[in-house]
Structures are given as C-alpha cells and as structure tokens.
C-alpha cells in the first residue's frame, strides 16, 4: 500500500516538473508559432546561470533564481530580435535557427564549464512525511512552483491586456497588426517569458537532478510530448498533457522494461494524433 501511495505521489510530482519545463515551450509555440527546439538548451543555460550566481558569486539561491530568470528573459529578447524576427512567418527557417542555437549554447557551456559534475543546492531541504510515506521537500516545492507558474501564465494570458494581445497575435497576426497591436513587441514578450520560464525550470530541476550540458535534450523531448499531447495553442492543456506523460513515466517502469515504457508512451501520442490531430485541447495550425 505504501509503495502505491509513493508511486501516485511521484507521478504527480514528475508530471508537475514536466509541466514546468513544457510551459515556456508551449507559450512560444502558441504565440509566436516558433517550434523552439533550443528551449532545452535555454533551460540548461538558465540552470548554469543560477549555479554561477549562487555558487561562484555566493548570492542567495532565491535571488540567483530570479536573476537567472531575468538574464534569460533578456536573452529571449535578444533571440526574438536578432534570431527569430528576421524569419517571422517562416516556420522552417525558425526551426533551423533554433537547432543552430542548441549547438551554439551546448558547445559554449561544454567548453567553458562542461567537464565538471554539478548540481544546484536544494532550494528547500528536508523530507515531508505523511503516515509512512516521505516526500522530498525539494521535489514537492518544484511541483508546486510548476503548477503555480502555469496557472499564473494562464491567468496572465486570459486577463491582462498584453495576454489578450498575445492571443490575438496567435490567432491571426495580420489581423492583430491591423488592430494596432505591435506584433513584434508581443512576440518579444512571449519569447522573454518563455526563456524566463525555461530558466526557472532549469534552475529548480538542476537542484532536483543535476546540471549537465545535455540536460536540455532529455527535457525537450518530454516538453514536445506534453505539448503535442495537450495540443498546440493550449497553455492550460499542458497540465493534462504533463499529467499523462508524467504518470506513464512514473508507473510503467515499475512493471515493464524501459524500452516498452518508452514505446507505450509514444504509441499513445501517435494514436491520439491519429484520432485528434490537434491534440487534446489544441487548435489546428496553418
């Protein structure tokens, strides 16, 4: 019984982490229409930035987290202005740019700090015990942050003026521009937010797991799975997509081999796409 409770708790925690990692990716894809494959690399650089600030410069870990998010938000503005804006509306060029960014970011980090094994210290330490089941506070905290940020992001998009502009751009960028919305400004905000979210995810998960140059590759695959499952254009749907993928990844390894686990997860996505090409809550893209 105890192990079943632990499995359920772990499924929820892992799902929330996937949600945290996928929300920035979903935002950029939904608003800008950019399939940003560099999201994983940005997540990794965000984690390293937090490490640098907290460990090398001795700053408070919380302050480091906020600063890392800020730095990556600025980096997002740079990316939007100089890497993605010149190719606005050109899906394939933006994909190639994002793939190039992966190599640039990974190689840069690998050459500068890559040979050392690193992990961020826990933002919250200790264990949370209920009955006979114990949960790491670090994981619990990361899960809470992940879900909270997703709700905050959803609220921001639905309730704020900028969020409404984002929705308008996402639905029809030319129509939005004709209404006086500055689409490049909206895209820049979306990209900055997406990169900041990636940095928060990279920092928190760099504490739960570890920091390495290629940590973003693994999480990118999960983020893509979550976004495809939840549906492009649906930020809120990421929660359900994350829950499904996280539960599969938590439960299946206990009862079957790793290869079958991965096959089942991907088969579910393929079947779903055959039945519902736009994903669970998504809209169809042009």
């Amino acid at each position, binding site marked *: 019984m105890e*192990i079943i409770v*632990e*499995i359920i708790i*772990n499924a929820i*925690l*892992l799902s929330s*982490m996937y949600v945290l990692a996928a929300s920035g990716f979903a935002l950029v894809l939904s608003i800008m229409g950019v399939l940003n494959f560099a999201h994983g690399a940005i997540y990794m650089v965000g984690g390293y930035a937090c490490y640098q600030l907290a460990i090398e410069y001795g700053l408070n870990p919380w302050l480091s987290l906020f600063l890392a998010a800020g730095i990556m938000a600025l980096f997002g503005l740079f990316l939007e202005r100089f890497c993605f804006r010149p190719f606005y509306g050109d899906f394939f060029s933006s994909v190639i740019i994002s793939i190039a960014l992966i190599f640039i970011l*990974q*190689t840069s980090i*690998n050459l500068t700090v*890559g*040979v*050392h*094994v*690193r*992990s961020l*210290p*826990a933002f919250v*330490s200790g*264990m949370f015990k209920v009955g006979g089941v*114990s949960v*790491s506070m670090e*994981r619990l905290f990361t899960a809470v942050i992940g879900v909270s940020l997703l709700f905050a992001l959803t609220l921001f998009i639905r309730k704020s003026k900028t969020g409404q502009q984002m929705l308008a751009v996402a639905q029809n960028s030319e129509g939005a521009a004709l209404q006086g919305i500055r689409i490049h400004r909206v895209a820049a905000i979306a990209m900055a937010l997406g990169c900041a979210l990636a940095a928060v995810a990279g920092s928190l998960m760099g504490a739960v*797991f*570890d920091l*390495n*140059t*290629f940590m973003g*590759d*693994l*999480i990118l*695959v*999960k983020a893509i799975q979550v976004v495809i499952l939840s549906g492009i254009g649906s930020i809120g749907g990421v929660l359900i997509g994350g829950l499904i993928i996280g539960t599969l*990844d*938590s*439960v*299946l*390894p*206990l009862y079957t*081999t*790793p*290869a079958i*686990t*991965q096959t089942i997860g991907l088969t579910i996505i393929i079947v779903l796409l055959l039945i519902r090409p736009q994903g669970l809550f998504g809209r169809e893209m042009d």
Partner: protein
Amino acid sequence: MKRNSLFKLRGGVSLVVALMFFLCMEPHATAKPKTLRIGFLTGLTGFASDSERVHLQGAELARDWVNEKGGVTIKGEKYLVELVPEDHKCTADGAVAGATKLVYDQKVKYIAGTIMPFIIAAVTTVTEPAHVIRSVAYNCGTPQEFSAKTPYTFLSQNGTIGAIISGLKFLKKARPEVKTIAVFIPDDGSIPYLEPQVRKWAKNNGMEVKGDIVGWPLNTVDFTPFALKAIKINADAVAMANGWPAMIGGVLKALRENGYHKPVIGLHYSQAKDVMEVAGKEASDNYFIHGINTNTPQKTDIVKWILDRGQTKYGHQRVAFFIEGFDSVFVLAQAIEKAQSLDTDDVKNAWEKMDDINTAYGLAHMEGQETYGLRHAVVGPRAIEGLEKGAVKSFGWMRDIKVP
C-alpha cells in the same frame, strides 16, 4: 687590392666549406625523434562529452608522460607520441565517421579511447577490417565490443566485468551481512551479457541477485520510478553496474529519498565526490565505488603525477576519468615498444604475449581468455572509495583482481 680580393675569396671558400660541412652534419647533430601517431576517439560533443573530454585530457597527460620519459624506443630509434583526436559525437554514426576519418584520412594505425558499448561496437566495424589496433578505455561486457571476433581490439583496463568481480568481493568483505542484492544496469544493450556475470560473481561471494535486473534507459530524467522498483525487491544492498556520475548520483538520491538506507555499491569506476555532487550530502552515506582521490593511500607515482599535472594543466582533478584516457594510450605505447615494430600485426602478437603491463594504478596483467574469448584485457589493481555521512572516504585497494 689584390690581397684584399684573395682574402675575400679565401673567406668565401671557407664559408662554403663550413656550410657544406654543417649541412652534412645536420641530420646527425640534431636528429629529431620520429613521430608515433595515435588516434584518440572520444565524445567532444554529445551527451557524455563532459566526462569524455576528460578522457582526452587524460590521453594528453599520457602523451606528455611518455614523451617526457624519452618517447617510445623501437630498434634504437626514438618516437614521440602524437595524439590525433577525433570526436565521435556520442553517437554510433558519429563514431563510424570519426573512425573512418582517423583510419583512411589521417592514416593512423592505432586508436585509443571510447567507452560506451554502442560506440565501441560501431568503431570495430571500421578498425577490425583495416587491422588497426585499438586500445579501448572501457568495456561493458558485450561481445560486439570485444570478443574473439575482434582480434585487433584490446581493453586497457578492468572493464565492467572486472568491476563486478572486485566490487562484489569488496562488498562481501565490507558488509558481510549482505546476502541479497538488487542490481541496476543501464538499458544500453549490455543487460543480457552483464546479468549472468553479476549472478555468477554474486554467488561466488555468497550472495544472490534478488528479482529482475532494474534496467534504466540512458535518457532517464527522473530515477525515482527505478529506485522504487529496486526498493520493492527488498534486497540487503543495491549494486549499480555502469553509468555516469550524474546518473549514479540520481539513483542514490532517489533511493535515499524513498527510505532505502542499506549499502549501495557501484560496480564500475567513477569518483565518489562527483556522485555526491548530484546526490547531495544527505543522501551520501553507506555508498562505495571504485574510485581514487587525493586522500587515497598508497597512490602510485603516476597517479600523483596525474593529479598534479591535471590540476596545473586543466584546473581539475577528475582523476578516475583522467586515468581511463591515460591508460588507453599508456598501455598501447608499451605494447608498441614491446613489439619493436610499428606493424599492427607485430604489435597485436607482442601484446598478446605480454604477461605484465604498467598502468597508472600499478602493475597489471593480461587476462580475459575465458570471459572474452581472447587474452586482451589489461587487469590491474583498483582503489575503493565511498561516501559516509556526507563525506568522501577511502577504503584502500583491491589488488588481487582476476578476470578469468
């Protein structure tokens, strides 16, 4: 005036004669050592490059060590080692491309490095038909990497099977109460070959492998589900064969967070400090691994030199990874010198006939006939370190390791 011209003429003739004499003498006076080119294939990019780049640094240290001692002497001629590094990108196709470039473009006849089973197996498809000698830096026990069908491939260290043998022997000595073990192995194709070895050597040490092997994919993000699976087995100890520090640390952390506080041992080679970096101090207890650090007693002179030079040259002391790269070049250089020939068939034959060979860890022996189908494995002593209450501790050396 005439006298002056005669003086100039004599001077010119003398100069020409002196120059000719100098030119004739030059090759003998400044006889340059020849170059022995050794390819080094490693992951400079790709998912394991953080560790594999340290292998290249270790190989460079071996080059320096050999060259500073005068190089390799073949029939009285000195050869200085020149490394030709190539990136295998941590993918099988990258490994084939890298090996092809080394063998056919760079024309190297010896290749050191590579540790992952699918990389080693991929490179074999290029090097074996070309009769290129390989000194691989690790081995996971699959016949595709290393068997009677790969006569030009040598293993420069104990490999996973050597670590299984010495690790379980150590566990029996350090924790005699352990009678059952749960075993983690990466799902990289090596499980079917390593499982019988673990079961056999556990039995030889009075232990039993309980339940199925806990396989985990190399692209695992969270090790908690696998830790829960191992905990469900309810064994007296957990043994992990292979994995990088980030992965091992992830498993150790997940085991401890989920209430498993019994002994955990790594049946491979790494550094406890790196594992603790990922697992965190709270989880770092009752853990052992084949590893070496600055506080390990009775370090060899080569290990001390590697620690010093590694710190000076590269600014770190990830000595276990340095040595994997170091030994793959160092033992190869010794085999070439033993052969007294640069011909790869001569080197292969000479290496096969060697009984003893030096490694950074100390004197090793050529073994592995029964296990691998050829006597191509360099098997030597290993230090054990561990984690106790959040601190790295040395547990001495395992010296009588034999891979049949």
